[in-house]
């Protein structure tokens, strides 16, 4: 692996990348630094350009403009075979007529390794991905999850400096997917290989990534750690795309106030001028249910911000297993509703049912204000 000088900590440096398909811009002016050993997820809805960016990094579909440096070397116009990466596709792309061993050994041949060395390396890779003894089978004889692990083993066989994963888990069923998430993450940590994964599954990204790159319409919306992305979305798109989010039409009040239907509430500070139409956001699980004693100071059910308390009507309740999803009505929302997720415990304690009135608080620290999108 090439030396990375401390002055330039980015192992993979993407600068001003553009990609046009005819008139359609799939990537507009994308710049991104990825540190050595990092696990980065490109996250976004389909058509946002995340796969295009991955394929540009791999050299499979060259960008129209812009540069890519890997380990300090300009790889902008190199063909895939001139770059240093291993790749795993959603379809696994295992060679169906070759045994598992031969699939893994495919990249080790013609590299000056002896047959014995190759066999040893293949055996150890099968161990690493947890499928020893399966080497003589054909891919079709393995389950989807097993095939994906073989594809992973094949990709890391030659110790590439960069591991690219293109929606590697989306063809698998839910349970296998959750299991493999942890295995891949574990393996990546053990090998320390810089990894870029493309996914449209936000949960996957939140669980696996050191750094998430949220993309939309060919631009990067935000780069940050999973908690940053979740707690402090920089744009309304990110706020809406990651997790559930109430998006409430409102006006800006003072620097840390939003006005919802005439009710002024405290929020995180924002830069909007007073009276500007905005969208106020708060997550369903950042709506705190309060009982009768809530207004008493000092109690364990104490209200944090008196301005953010609303007396609401519980309109509908939906049981989602580990929590209840409630639709709350209040005059300030007009025809709209506030969605709140309450724990099973809270619902039992507060004896909530639809048709009842209750007290809720919209957590000030989680209340954000964004530009109103053009219609």
């Amino acid at each position, binding site marked *: 692996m090439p030396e990375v000088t401390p002055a330039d900590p980015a192992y993979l440096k993407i600068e001003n990348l*553009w990609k*046009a398909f005819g008139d359609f*811009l799939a990537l*507009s*002016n994308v710049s991104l630094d990825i540190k050595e050993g990092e696990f980065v997820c490109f996250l976004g809805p389909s058509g946002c350009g995340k796969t295009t960016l991955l394929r540009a990094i*791999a*050299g*499979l579909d*060259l*960008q*129209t*403009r*812009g540069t890519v440096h890997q380990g300090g070397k300009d790889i*902008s*116009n*190199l*063909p*895939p*075979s*001139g*770059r240093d*990466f*291993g*790749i795993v*596709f959603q*379809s696994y*792309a295992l*060679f*169906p*007529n*070759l045994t598992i061993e031969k699939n893994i050994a*495919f*990249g080790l*041949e*013609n*590299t000056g390794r002896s047959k014995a060395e190759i066999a040893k390396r293949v055996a150890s890779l099968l161990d690493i991905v947890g499928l020893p003894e399966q080497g003589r089978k*054909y*891919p*079709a*004889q393995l389950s989807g999850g097993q095939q994906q692990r073989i594809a992973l083993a*094949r*990709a890391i*066989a*030659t110790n*590439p400096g960069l591991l690219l994963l293109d929606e590697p888990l989306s063809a698998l069923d839910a349970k296998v997917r959750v299991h493999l998430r942890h295995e891949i993450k574990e393996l990546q940590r053990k090998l320390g290989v810089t990894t870029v994964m493309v996914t449209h599954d936000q949960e996957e990204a939140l669980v696996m990534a050191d750094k998430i790159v949220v993309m939309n*319409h*060919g*631009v990067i919306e935000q780069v940050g750690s999973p908690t940053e992305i979740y707690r402090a979305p920089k744009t309304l798109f990110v706020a809406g795309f990651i997790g559930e989010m109430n998006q409430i039409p409102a006006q800006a009040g003072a620097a840390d106030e939003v006005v919802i239907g005439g009710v002024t509430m405290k929020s995180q500070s924002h830069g909007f001028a007073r009276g500007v139409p905005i969208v106020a956001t708060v997550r369903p699980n950042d709506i705190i249910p309060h009982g009768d004693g809530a207004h008493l100071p000092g109690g364990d059910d104490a209200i944090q911000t008196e301005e953010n308390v609303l007396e609401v009507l519980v309109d509908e309740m939906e049981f989602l297993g580990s929590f209840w999803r409630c639709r709350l009505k209040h005059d300030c929302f007009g025809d709209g509703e506030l969605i709140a997720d309450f724990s099973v415990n809270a619902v039992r304690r507060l004896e909530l049912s639809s048709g009842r009135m209750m007290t809720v608080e919209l957590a000030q620290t989680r209340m954000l204000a964004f530009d109103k999108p*053009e219609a």
Partner: protein
Amino acid sequence: MSDARMGSIPAGPRIKGKLSRDDLIMRGSMIVIALYLLITMVFPLYAMMSKSLSTYKFDLAAYEVQVSGEEGTVFSDPVTFAELNETQEALHAGDLLAGSDGRLGVTQFFPDFSFRSPVNYRIRNLDEDGRFLVGSKLIDNTDWLELDSNTFRRVQLRPKKDIGLGNFTTYFSTPALSDSIKNSVMIATISTIITVTLAFWFAYALSRSCMRFKGLFRLIAMAPILVPSLLPGIALVYLFGNQGMLKEALFGASIYGPIGIIIGSVFFTFPHAFLIISTGLAISDARLYEAAVSLKATRWRTFWTVTIPGARYGLVSAAFVVFNLVITDFGLPKVIGGQFNVLAVDIYKQVIGQQNFEMGAVVSVVLILPAILAFAIDRFVQSKQVALLSARSVPYQPSPNTRMDWIMFGYASLVGVFLIGMLAVCQFAALVKFWPYDLSFSLNNYQFNKMDGGGWAAYFNSIKLGLLTAVIGTSIIFFGAYLVEKSNGFRTGRTIFQMFAMLPMAIPGMVLGLSYIFFFNNPDNPLNVIYGTMTILVVCTVTHFYTVSHLTATTALQQMDREFESVSASLKQPTLKLFSRVTVPVCLPAILDISIYLFVNAMTTVSAVVFLYSHDTALASIAVLNMDDAGDIAPAAAMGMMIFYTNAGARIIHLIASRGIVGRTQAWRKR
């Protein structure tokens, strides 16, 4: 873009990717195969087109003559032949039209010419490009040449070449020629209607009823593919010819003509129509039938609202394929057409019979037009069909219905008897000693060496051609399809290649063969060394059957994961290693299908190679034609059946080989 943050792309050069070694190898190979198609198809076709536009005419104004008196020394003033002709009125404008090797004697311009007279003549070209012959010596300068009258007798003018539509004018103003267009279209239309109707009900019986022996009927339906198209002609001669077994059944009408051509065409196009239509019927969705039943639709209504719309693309496609096959077929009308002229035979007559290559080229151009049109419509219709089959379709399973099943069985049996009957008649004819006088069996008719047509050598040449075509053709075509499917970038190159690969299907065999004469028999072409060899036959056959094979290969390749090449490149392995280790083994069933297709077609083809075989490279299918032409009909039938058995054998070997190889190399398919 509505999004405000999205700017427009900055000016400046695009990133140009460096090509890997593999990219270079793949592009290079693609160019080589494209060049192959250019040389074996595009250039010959161009040669033919330009031939059809070449007109030859004697230009009388291009020569001057002087005549001496009796004493032989005092010459008159120079005068052109045009001026002489005006006074003599020896020749009319129509007499001055000529072929490329036309010659015109000059003594007719001198009414009192005598080769014994002491008069001397002087002659010269007026133009730099004027030419005339003295005996066999070509004079192409403008110097005066003095000749005695005995030598002057041997002066012949050569025609001047011109570019224009003259040949086409001649063609369309000669009813004997242009009537063939009407004849060809009529034959093709009637045959198409009959074949498609018969094939539809046959396919319907096989897919929508629970009748017995479906496998056997499917086999019988495919049998005509294994014989040359002229074989049914021979069978018809035996059945309905002048000494035919069932001659009375025609009530005095002659089998030699449209009736014979149509019956034979139905026979040899049946499998093609059946294959296409049964594919169309097979992809129907059982849920539609369930819906029809639950809506209480009658059988009749279900047929018209579910079955026919589902199969309509198949029907249209089959109709155009059959039309194309019939209108371009040469063997059958040659054998049974009698005096009834059709386009494909006209080409042959013009070229082989009258040595009028320009007119042959004109008929070829005329024949290409309907063929290309039918081809284009068929491609369009087929591209529509893809969307019909959704992954969630449920295949239709017929349920037993005794009455309907027996009706269908009866119908299928009738068609089966027709198809097998034709072959049986040929086999019978081949074994009978001397029809209709001595009906005892013998193998006399198999002593091909005693007949004209090439003998047993022709049969073995055919097998050689079949094997070479299968091996070389499959390699070129599959590799070419791989390159065009799996190369990176190079979009223009790939589009052009794809176009080249689709073109041969639209070119009738006769036209291709004739084009080869024009292109490869040109002494200026360094490739003319292959003229008259086995090589040109292989090259011609590969090109002739390129498209279907290419499409088979493309379909198989498209089913492979698109990312194999990406993975291989990321592992820094050469693409050719991937090709040989993965692509070829996985596509082996398709590769075997292509080889057997090429082999069978090389064995049966007549049209393209009829212009190209030489004494040493006579072929079995050509031998059938020539023996029939020479009146040796029984041996012709015998040779035709040899082709049938060889192809049937090849099919069986192919089947066993496929099973064996697939069993060994495709173990991965089993779970």
